[in-house]
């Protein structure tokens, strides 16, 4: 069952001089209920922007230019007793609710989306270590979230729930009366996760959930997320630059580069049957702890600025496999399995299947072999092309 369906979402940041940063460009992906979906990419690839835009939390100069965000859930006032959208709302052409009861988050006003934040979609920000307000008790901050979305709850009940939530993530309930500075780094992270579960949301967006943490604590937090997913059945959208973390926790993922999805599909497919030059390059440059002798090869050049980019493939300037076509237009998502079996390019119709945005996946075997060769990635080769 699809929980979230993002279609052709484009996000821009306006700049003073009139140009715009294309932080996310016609991005599509979908998240199923109960699954962990990953958005992986380097800094500035648009992954965080994308996540924030789902609940309209972009910076002041950012805006959604086009696209839809279909979410299986709706505003409290549009819902019937089961939480589904009322028929009258579905029929109302002025309300952005689809036949199947999904609501287009992108079309909601700021005031409307506020009612859905945290109740339906909770987001753990990148700097979760600073996400707790230093001047309020940790427990009170959880209570605040509960009371905001469930006004009928009494304060005492909310307090009990806050303590219970903390205990579930492994924090002594008494610590609810402590301030954030009395918590260690790992505990802060757990507290934020507990807070995120306060209103049992359907979707949890975790932006770099373990980046600032030490490795042993990171390990525990990853376990905590898995446990919560089992317990609450929540879907998790993880955003991270750390490929190994993503490989471990995600069911499916999308690899982003320069505001575009380069490759998407099941985690096994992405790492086992890699089908995009960028992902291939990324794999080459990532050290693993298990293999003793490996040669790391980095991708030459630097990421594009995304300021009014030209229509060509975003990766072509760093790509050793770029061809004439790549300069004309960014490739659409092609179905990988199809290309591999038939040797022909066919645009992917199913968002869930393994897809790759590259004109050359019809010669996939060749790409994979060449990508393993270090010489392929030297600067000279790419420039002499």
């Amino acid at each position, binding site marked *: 069952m699809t929980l979230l369906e993002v279609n052709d979402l484009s996000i821009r940041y306006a700049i003073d001089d009139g140009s715009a940063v294309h932080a996310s460009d016609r991005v599509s992906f979908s998240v199923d209920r109960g699954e962990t979906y990953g958005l992986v990419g380097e800094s500035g690839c648009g992954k965080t922007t994308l996540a924030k835009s789902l*609940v309209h*939390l972009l910076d002041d100069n950012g805006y959604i230019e086009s696209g839809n965000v279909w979410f299986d859930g709706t505003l409290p006032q549009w819902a019937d007793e089961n939480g589904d959208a009322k028929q009258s709302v579905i029929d109302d052409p002025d309300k952005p609710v689809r036949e199947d009861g999904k609501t287009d988050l992108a079309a909601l006003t700021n005031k409307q989306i*506020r*009612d*859905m*934040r*945290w*109740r339906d979609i*909770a*987001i753990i*920000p*990148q*700097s*979760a*270590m*600073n*996400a*707790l*307000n*230093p*001047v309020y008790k940790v427990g009170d901050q959880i209570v*605040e*979230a509960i009371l*905001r*979305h469930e006004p009928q709850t009494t304060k005492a009940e909310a307090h009990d729930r806050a303590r219970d939530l903390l205990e579930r993530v492994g924090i002594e309930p008494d610590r609810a009366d402590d*301030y954030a*500075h009395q918590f260690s780094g790992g505990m802060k992270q757990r507290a*934020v996760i507990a*807070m995120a579960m306060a209103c049992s949301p359907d979707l949890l967006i975790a932006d770099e959930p373990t980046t600032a943490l030490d490795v042993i604590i990171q390990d525990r937090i990853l376990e905590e997320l898995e446990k919560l997913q089992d317990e609450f059945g929540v879907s998790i959208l993880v955003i991270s630059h750390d490929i190994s973390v993503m490989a471990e926790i995600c069911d499916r993922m999308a690899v982003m580069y320069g505001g575009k999805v380069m490759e998407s599909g099941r985690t096994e497919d992405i790492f086992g049957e890699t089908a995009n030059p960028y992902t291939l390059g990324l794999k080459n440059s990532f050290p693993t702890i298990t293999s003793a002798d490996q040669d790391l090869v980095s991708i030459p050049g630097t990421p594009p600025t995304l300021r009014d980019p030209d229509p060509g493939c975003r990766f072509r300037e760093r790509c050793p496999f770029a061809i004439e076509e790549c300069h004309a237009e960014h490739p659409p998502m092609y179905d990988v399995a199809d290309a591999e079996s038939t040797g022909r390019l066919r645009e992917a119709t199913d968002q869930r299947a393994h897809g790759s945005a590259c004109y050359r996946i019809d010669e996939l075997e060749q790409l994979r072999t060449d990508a393993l060769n270090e010489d392929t990635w030297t600067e000279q080769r790419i420039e002499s092309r």
Partner: protein
Amino acid sequence: MTRISGKYLAKRIVVSYLTLLVIMSLLFVLLRSMPGSFITSMISSGMTAEQIARIRETWGLNEPLWRQYLNFMINYQTGNFGRSPTYNTQVWDLMIRRMPRTLVLFGSTFIIGFIVGPLVGMYLGWWRGSRKDKSIFSTSLLLYSMPSFWISWLFIWVFNYELDLLPSAYMFTQFPEFQWTAFTVMRDVLYHIALPIMSLTFIGWVGSMLIMRPTMNQVTDEGYVFLARAKGLSERTVMVKHAARNALIPVATGAVVSLAFLIDGSVIVENVFNWPGMGQIIVSSVLNRDFPVAQATFFMLAVLVVVMRLLTDVIYTYLDPRIKFGEGE
């Protein structure tokens, strides 16, 4: 529940006391370095050398300077501020009478300034860069640039001279026909204090606004502000409850600085409005070389600043739970 330990407080009081001692020594030296002395005005040409010597002895000026200094420091420990040659009264009585009048003026401007300033600063910082921010900010800088006596004159001109609404001088009606009750006195004081307060606060709030605005702006980038939004709270709640509460912390530090600004302002305003407080006598005593009074007024104002610093620390611990004074971690 305060997080200041007794030991820390004791330490701070010792430091403040030492600071005051140094300030007093500095004052002693500086005041004595001014040319002339108050006895010059008491000595008339017809006096004999003996008479002059007696006057000098009465005011303790025949002793060597280091002796005078010691006497001064020791007397101050016991609260003996000496006699004023120009006011011809015990300086201590003078202080006791004048200090409250200054504090009334001072306290009310301070409070109004510290409500208006941070409030405006909060809005401007939150909407930094907006058209509203730009126009209000530049206007407030214009206000901040006005000489306080000049703005007082303008107020007097409008509210007293043209409209005849408010009195332009003194703290009480000079020859009251009314019954002396607490209520009438209070009403009379309020009536007289209106213009001085208006003049002071018209400029005074800008100081705390200037501190609040940038900190408020920084706070908007904090993770907890983002999280508060993500929780679905309204912009207003996010701004007031989460952002402003944190941005207030540095404003507490700024309070001491703007206090100094306010003292200057009230010195001028007391002189303009003939307000019978400390600011009025501090200028005249310096100009008349009335050392006992000058020393005492400087001392009292220094005590005010030092006490405010201590208070700021206490306020700090209430504003910021992270701060714990005087305990090793």
